[in-house]
């Protein structure tokens, strides 16, 4: 009991000082396509970023891309890599090195004019990479 | 002081107690003899509330104990030193002793009782911060007795305290039993070692196959020919 009470007090104390929600912030959306980069478990991904509301491409951002396995929360830590901006407006390229085949949540962190995180759920297999659809069954372990 | 009457306890369909009655007199040592499987442990566990009887009653100075939880029964003043599961092995000797005083709130009195236990059992004092599981068999038995005493019981139940101990240690345990009784503790002692029991007990009950088949004083016990042959004729190991 005491544990919980202490915990609550600590959270309250810690979060009280944080700034309030800044609404009307720009939110991003991402379209991600990946292909095998030749090496096993290495993939080249192209990320197209756009303003979620207006659809306008988002360029000039610092983009880093990590990945997490939803079926093993917190237990895989794929080192996030910087994506390089392409000539095409709003397009960024990145090479991902994963630890196993299966469904990964590709985690795209944006910095710069827009600070946001976009998650893209993809299934990485030996040869190809597909979007994970709710109906397409699940693959983890 | 403690009256058990017509107690029936079952394990599934097996009737381990088939109507057991016995009386434990205040301030005395009552000894329960009987072969393995007679139902002695079952009786002790039923009195302590761990097992629920089918029928019968257990009264402590007239107050019914059947139906109470083990915790309530402890608070009424019954402490059991169970067979084979003596101590909390991963806890220190001191913590084991404190466990016995779990229901008490009188901190200073508890501390005084701890000192009394350490005085009576010097081995425990030396090893007070040691984990109980690392004690020898005899020391664990003493710790179990000391822990039971920490609850300041009105009746102390002991289930085969000499089980598996070397003869010298058994003698030591019986010295303690006798000393505790001199201090006024009422005891119900389960024992297979009738020779030892004869030296300390005031009243005997013999249990066989879930029934009490004999009761009497040490004198009567020693005279009974059947018992002579079964329990006193050949010395049992352990």
């Amino acid at each position, binding site marked *: 009991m005491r544990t*919980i009470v202490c915990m609550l007090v600590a959270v309250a104390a810690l979060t009280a000082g944080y700034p309030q929600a800044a609404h009307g912030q720009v939110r991003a959306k991402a379209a991600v396509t990946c292909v095998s980069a030749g090496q096993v478990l290495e993939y080249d991904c192209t990320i197209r970023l756009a303003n979620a509301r207006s659809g306008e491409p988002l360029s000039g951002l610092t983009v880093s891309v990590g990945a997490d396995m939803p079926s093993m929360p*917190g237990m895989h830590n794929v080192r996030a890599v910087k994506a390089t901006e392409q000539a095409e407006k709003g397009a960024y390229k990145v090479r991902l090195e994963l630890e196993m085949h299966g469904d990964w949540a590709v985690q795209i962190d944006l910095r710069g004019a827009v600070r946001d995180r976009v998650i893209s759920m993809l299934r990485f297999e030996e040869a190809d990479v597909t979007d994970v659809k709710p109906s397409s069954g699940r693959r983890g372990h | 002081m403690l009256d058990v009457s017509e107690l029936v306890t079952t394990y599934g369909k097996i009737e381990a107690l088939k109507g057991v009655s016995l009386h434990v007199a205040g301030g005395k040592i009552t000894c329960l003899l009987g072969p393995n499987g007679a139902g002695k442990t079952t009786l002790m566990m039923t009195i302590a509330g761990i097992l629920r009887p089918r029928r019968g009653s257990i009264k402590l100075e007239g107050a019914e104990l059947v139906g109470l939880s083990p915790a309530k029964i402890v608070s009424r003043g019954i402490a059991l030193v169970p067979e084979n599961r003596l101590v909390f092995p991963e806890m220190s000797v001191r913590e084991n002793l404190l466990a016995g005083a779990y229901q008490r709130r009188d901190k200073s009195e508890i501390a005084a009782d701890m000192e009394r236990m350490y005085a009576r059992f010097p081995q425990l004092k030396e090893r007070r911060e040691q984990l109980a599981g690392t004690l020898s068999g005899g020391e664990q038995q003493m710790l179990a007795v000391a822990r039971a005493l920490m*609850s300041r019981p009105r009746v102390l139940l002991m289930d085969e305290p000499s089980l598996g101990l070397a003869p010298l240690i058994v003698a030591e345990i019986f010295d303690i039993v006798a000393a505790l009784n001199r201090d006024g503790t009422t005891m119900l002692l389960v024992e297979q070692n009738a020779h030892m029991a004869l030296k300390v007990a005031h009243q005997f009950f013999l249990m066989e196959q879930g029934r009490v088949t004999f009761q009497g004083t040490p004198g009567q016990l020693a005279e009974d020919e059947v018992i002579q042959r079964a329990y006193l004729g050949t010395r049992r190991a352990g």
Partner: protein
Amino acid sequence: MDDYLVSVLSNIGVISFVALSAYLLLLTGEISFGQQAFFAIGAYAAGMATAMWGWPLALGIAWGAAVGAACAVSLGIPTLRLRGLQFSIATLAFAEMVRILFELFRYQVDIDGEPVGPNGTDGFRSIRYIFDHNIETFDFMMLIYTMLAVTLAGFMLLERSRLGVIFRMIGEDATLASLQGIAVARYKVLAAGIAGALAAVGGGLYAHLTTYVEPRTFDVMLGVHSLAYGLIGGLGTALGPLLGVVIDVGLLESVRLFAGYRMIIFGGLVALLLIFRPRGLLDERLVNRIGRLFRNAISGSTRTGRGSR
């Protein structure tokens, strides 16, 4: 601080809560394969509170903990009467049931023109509190560790307290504990409730750390791991399960050599430890020995100071 390190440490911190949750139940002698259910409940409840209802984070996480504790208590009352393996199987069944319920759970509201909320197997995305409030990942990590430190301090107090001793007694021998006059069932339910709250806090933090959760995040995999952390790290102290997490998430994970074989190594490690050190690396014996060394070392200098009590 390196982003990668921040992310690894944040993960370790969050998983530690589930590990501590399973550890608390292990202390009372119960093996639960279902703590991931409370992690899930905490994640969804806290996520809904902040992302859908606009609550502050602290309140959201507290709410998650409360819901987790309530669910754990109501599960504990009927199941803790079960013995050993039956209890374990009941917790597993419950966790799978919770996961399936979340697969069916759809409840979204419109926020800034976007649907936000749990959406069945697609999960619950856009738990964007830390982005909406411009909380840096480093600061969020500090929040996780502050809460973990407070929780650990709570455990340290618990271990020295009467309640902690009672939990240990029940864990070592429930019958012997009830012979000391302890109402075993009541304390087991209490432990289950605290454990549920802890797992739920972990879940709430996790949801905000990653910004999304989905039902399969709460697969039995997580439950088995969190159980294993206590068994590897040791049951002698609350630092044991943390050591387990660090070994798995920190060590095995970061050594790239093991990639792909990690599960096998992890499984082998658990098996070896169960054989050679059934109560883990930091078991009671080691903790007791260290404690005695420590006491002996300082007794000379502190005895005079403490004498006045």
